[in-house]
């Protein structure tokens, strides 16, 4: 059986044109998808049953037992951290926020370690953006800054930018110019008309320099800015000003490097400035398929996109204080609830060490690094393959991911709702 128009639950591109072949309730083929999509749909490495840590080993158990154990840990916690959320359905994210309010915990999603700094920048200066189709149909200049779509978002260029058809471009591939800015010559950079190679940590200065050039203050600049020749910057500024529609995409090369969110603020201010001359937009290359959904859900429920502290029953937000890395590294939480992400694999060692010290509950279909630090893990259905649910694309478009095969596993929402009920029950006692 072939199922068409399937949405890929891997990266923020949320490609919705996959065709998945199913035989005997197993995915046997994925058409149109990239290598990452194929790996996702043909996944292995599942955890079969709930497990509970017992001494220095795990033992298998039933769902009721594991839910009870999870509720016991959470009810005793004076500062639980609920982390993850980017790899699950919007419905589960909503349940997670409500659970956090009930517990008086801190809820944070993986954006604090991907585009959280972009959000901080947006909160300072706003965000001139658009949906990806706007870029595909109009843009004659594409800029990838600090990101490598060939590796990170393999179909981004073919669906939305350089290799996509465009309504207003006769020959989109030829008419579109591509600029790539990075600290190293990535595969994406090899495709560029103009490659800006910046010394690590120099992005901020380069944005400032471009703004000065566009304001007619180029004369004050030195010959080189962060390793980039002034003549190249002038050329790039000219390309931007001559574009009818320019679209900047940026990645973790800006958020994770020195100056963090200030890099993005500067990039946005450059975009704002260019909008006074022509049309420009800027879009973060969101990583996890539904990380933007976790920001949306948390925003409409709590008012803030990530890093929300409900310790006192009201929402308090201050990334750097209420975000997962800071809390773990400073040992400020006494229990952790992980849903649909693998912090142990992606956080600095000091954070993992604290996870080993405190009780950790994980809701995830797979055995992963966090499993090794968990006290309880409940396996669930894979959202977007075994259970449907809402997801938000990197440009904010909401889509409903599909269920393509049957499963015996409950989904994230069901498990979290059960834990919620159980916590209510034990709190009353």
């Amino acid at each position, binding site marked *: 059986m072939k199922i068409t128009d399937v949405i890929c639950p891997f990266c923020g591109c949320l490609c919705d044109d996959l065709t998945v072949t199913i035989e005997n309730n197993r995915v046997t083929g994925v058409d149109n998808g990239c290598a990452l999509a194929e790996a996702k749909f043909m996944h*292995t490495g599942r955890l079969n049953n709930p497990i509970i840590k017992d001494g220095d080993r795990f033992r298998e158990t039933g769902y009721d037992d594991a839910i009870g154990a999870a509720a016991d840990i959470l009810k005793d916690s004076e500062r639980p951290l609920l982390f993850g959320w980017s790899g699950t359905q919007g419905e589960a994210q909503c349940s997670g926020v409500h659970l956090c309010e009930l517990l008086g915990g801190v809820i944070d999603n993986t954006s604090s370690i991907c585009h959280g700094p972009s959000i901080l920048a947006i909160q300072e200066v706003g965000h001139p953006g658009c949906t990806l189709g706007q870029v595909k149909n109009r843009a004659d200049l594409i800029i990838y800054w600090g990101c490598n779509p060939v590796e990170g978002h*393999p179909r981004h260029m073919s669906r939305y930018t350089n290799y996509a058809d465009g309504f207003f471009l006769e020959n989109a591939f030829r008419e579109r110019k591509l600029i790539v800015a990075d600290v190293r010559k990535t595969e994406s950079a090899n495709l560029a008309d103009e490659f800006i190679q910046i010394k*690590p940590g120099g992005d901020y200065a380069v944005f400032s320099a471009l703004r000065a050039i566009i304001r007619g203050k180029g004369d004050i600049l030195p010959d080189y800015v962060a390793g980039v020749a002034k003549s190249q910057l002038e050329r790039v500024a000219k390309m931007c000003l001559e574009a009818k529609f320019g679209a900047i995409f940026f990645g973790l090369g800006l958020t994770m490097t020195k100056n963090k969110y200030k890099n993005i603020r500067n990039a946005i201010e450059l975009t704002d400035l260019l909008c006074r001359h022509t049309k420009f937009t800027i879009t973060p290359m969101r990583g996890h398929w539904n990380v933007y959904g976790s920001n949306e859900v948390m925003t409409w429920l709590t008012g803030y996109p990530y*890093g929300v502290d409900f310790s006192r029953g009201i929402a308090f937000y201050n990334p*750097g204080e209420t975000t997962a890395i800071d809390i773990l590294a400073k040992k400020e939480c006494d229990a952790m609830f992980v849903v649909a992400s693998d912090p142990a694999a992606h956080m600095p060692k000091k954070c993992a060490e604290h996870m080993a010290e405190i009780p950790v509950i994980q809701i995830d279909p797979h055995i992963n690094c966090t499993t090794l*630090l968990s006290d309880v893990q409940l396996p669930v259905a894979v959202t977007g393959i075994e259970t449907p649910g809402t997801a938000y694309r990197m440009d904010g478009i909401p889509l409903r991911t599909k269920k393509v095969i049957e499963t015996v596993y409950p989904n994230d929402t069901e498990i979290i709702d059960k834990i919620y009920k159980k916590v209510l029950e034990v709190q009353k006692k």
Partner: protein
Amino acid sequence: MIFHMITGRTVKQGEGVEKKLSADYKKETSACRMNPLDMMDLGLNEGNHIKIISDYGEVVMTAVEDKTLTAGMIFIAYGPYCNVITSHDTHGTGMPDYKSTPVRIEETDEDLKTVEELFRGMGGTSL
């Protein structure tokens, strides 16, 4: 010599995110890619084991040549290996220095740890 460590996504690392205890994932995330000239300076050949040391820890990886990197820069795919040496300092922004931790590199005879061994060292449980 101080190297500037950048960590990031790769296709192979992405393919492995749901099988993190596999040999493929280990291979991809424990590869330290570096400029060939830097390798020459350190007397390293492709596949040599190296110890990478930062203010935050040390870890054994495999040296892999990568001409896209300029001298003084190393690239490691996201994963449990680079985490051992990554700075957890977020500078008040929530984001650690995933792309800006300074490290030192030495050749070593030590073996690479498996992912499970790495976590056992931090207090994790074996499966």
